[in-house]
């Protein structure tokens, strides 16, 4: 019951928020003209209706008189119907086939995929320090945090070695305009399935070749397996999964 209620809420709330917005856009783009029809359009519609009625009446009259000839009333030949059938068949064949064929070999089934995916903030460029009494006194009472922490962080560097060879080495800047966010990595590497030795190094202190965190592990990769190389922030270590 609660699930149903939350599901309904889930749909209802956005509809209530975006519905009026959507309606307003529609209104200004043209809905206004549909609901409050301008007199000129009303007149045009009236005239169109009148003309359609007049035309229909004339068609009936002329058909009765046998003088009005159009293809609309004439039947199509059996050959034409066959042609239609062929056209529908070809179209259906095209749609049916291309909706699921030909196959696309996206990934070699004998390979495994390594995904390097982690988001980790580098160390602060300038370490936090305690504010002096004087500094604290100069701040408004609600902003008197004892520590002053400059926001900017170092980029994070990662090196991933597979069986002793460098598979990836990269440096990522921290996110955010102030450079105070996490550095994110998302890379994919297809490798042959089998046993591999992984060596991962993560530097967060802004020193080239720094290795604040390391991981060295042997893993057996099955064909088509996805292996994640990541960083567990709660445990403070790199991991393979």
């Amino acid at each position, binding site marked *: 019951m609660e699930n149903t209620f939350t*599901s309904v809420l889930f749909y209802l709330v956005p509809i209530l928020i975006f519905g009026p917005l959507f309606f307003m856009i529609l209104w200004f783009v043209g809905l206004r003209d549909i609901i409050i029809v301008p007199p*000129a359009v009303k007149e045009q519609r009236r005239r169109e209706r009148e003309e359609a009625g007049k035309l229909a009446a004339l068609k009936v009259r002329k058909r009765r008189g046998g003088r009005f000839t159009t293809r609309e009333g004439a039947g199509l030949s059996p050959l*034409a119907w066959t042609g239609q059938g062929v*056209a529908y068949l070809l179209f259906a064949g095209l749609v049916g086939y291309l909706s699921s064929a030909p196959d696309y070999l*996206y990934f070699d089934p004998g390979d495994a995929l390594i995904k390097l995916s982690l988001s980790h903030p580098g160390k602060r460029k300038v370490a936090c320090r305690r504010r002096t009494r004087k500094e604290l006194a100069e701040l408004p009472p609600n902003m008197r945090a004892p520590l002053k922490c400059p926001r900017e962080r170092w980029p994070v560097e990662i090196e991933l070695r597979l069986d002793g060879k460098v598979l990836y080495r990269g440096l990522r800047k921290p996110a955010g305009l102030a450079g105070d966010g996490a550095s994110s990595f998302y890379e994919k590497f297809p490798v042959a399935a089998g046993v591999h030795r992984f060596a991962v190094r993560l530097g967060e202190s802004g020193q080239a070749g720094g290795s604040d965190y390391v991981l060295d592990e042997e893993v057996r990769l099955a064909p088509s397996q996805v292996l994640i190389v990541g960083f567990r922030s709660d445990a403070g270590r790199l991991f393979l999964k």
Partner: protein
Amino acid sequence: MLKTIRHPLRTLLLHVEAVFDRAFGPHWNPIRQLGTLAFFLFWVCAVSGIYVFILFETTVAGAFASVEYMTREQWYLGGIMRSLHRYSSDAMVVVMVLHMGREFVLDRYRGARWFSWLIGVPTIWFLYMSGISGYWLVWDQLAQYVAIASMEWLDWLGIFGEPVATNFLTPDSLSDRFFSLLVFIHIFVPLFLLFTMWIHVLRVTQPKINPPRGLAAGTLVMLVALSLVWPAVSHEPADLAVVPASLNLDWFYLPFYLLFDAWGGRTLWGLAVGVSVLLAAMPWLPPLRRSKAARVALDKCNGCRRCFADCPFGAITMEARSDSLPFEQEAVVDTDACARCGICVGACPVSTPFQRAGGLVTAIDLPDFALGHVRDLTERGLRALASEPADGGRRVMVFGCDHGARVGDLEQSGVAVVSLPCIGMLPPSFIDYALSRGAADGVVITGCRDGGCYQRFGVRWTQERLEGMRDPYLRSRVPRQRIRTLWAAPTDAAKLEEEVQTFRFWLRGLEDDHSPPPPEAALAPESVE
């Protein structure tokens, strides 16, 4: 350069249209109903989608199972609905691409049509977003591939703090809420799609959004039959711990993913944005048309509203009188919406060539191709006919249009021609004028193929005017047997010439032995008797 590309394509298109005309007839011809078919397919997709949504479970564990249930257990209804949903959306891509291609080939995207063309660009985006978001919902291996690739493509933009593709790292990184969000997207994006489709036809007078019933029935039967014979099925269920190797891609919606795999996000973004901008800019790319829009001569306009009723692009509005003449309204031309077709000129009751005093001035006219000029051309043709000895056939005046079969090539001894921007520009009184001068024994009216009028209503209005169903009428004194309407595309020029010659010789026979009129011309599905 555009003309060089367009010319062979137009020839090909017109030949294909002619083949379809034979099978479907001009009114059911799907090539001329691509826009209406797109609307129809949208409704099929929407109705089938509603049914599929009823059975669909918006949870990670239940999504795939619920789709499998409809496909396998309830194949007789749920399965058909799922397949209809798939195939109608695929067919929509086909008709959309053909529709866009046809309008380009026929040069029907510039001038007054720029708005519809421009709105078509976001419509393409919304269609693709609708289709691709639908593939996610199945949550099979294809959905997994599409979801991850889409997120990686978005990540290239660098607008997210963390890569959004990381949401698809492991099976436990997904929540049921994600599927609720997907359903939400898959419902709202098609609504936006419908909205843009509506705006697409907003500026079109009397837009056709429903295909003829026969064509709609045929399309629906085809889709149902396809769903029964070749039901849509899923891949293996998604497993984020495993990479799907082989995929049965939907090549209508997903071919761009191959490009993404091959070229990466930057190139695909460049391609997508570049193509969109190019498409959006096309109405303003050279060669530009610079002829002047229709102009109203207020002293002649009595506010009769005929131009207003006949304008195919809604470029004329009736407004309160701005002068002292004793009429309620006057016609006002929106120069941006005016297609320079001259249909308003043909609709105007003042447009008669019999005026003599002070030259031919009509209430609404094209400054660059005035009705007075049309009368001059007609008189020149009539003088030529009068001075030439007939070569065994009778003398014929041909009024044609610049977008149908080229009438210039018909000019020879016994045949004079006048080509107009649209045959709808010709007031019926010109036929009376040509025949009453005594120089022409017959008049041929020719324009675009029936149902394929470049200016939308030129052929239809002309027929109705000649048949006495629409103002201005052809006077009753005009002998109908001396008039032929032959609707012909540029590729039908040889047939048109043959029909004109046949008509000339028939006219001679008319005076010799009063034989019955010839059967309807092959090119004229709706010839005037």
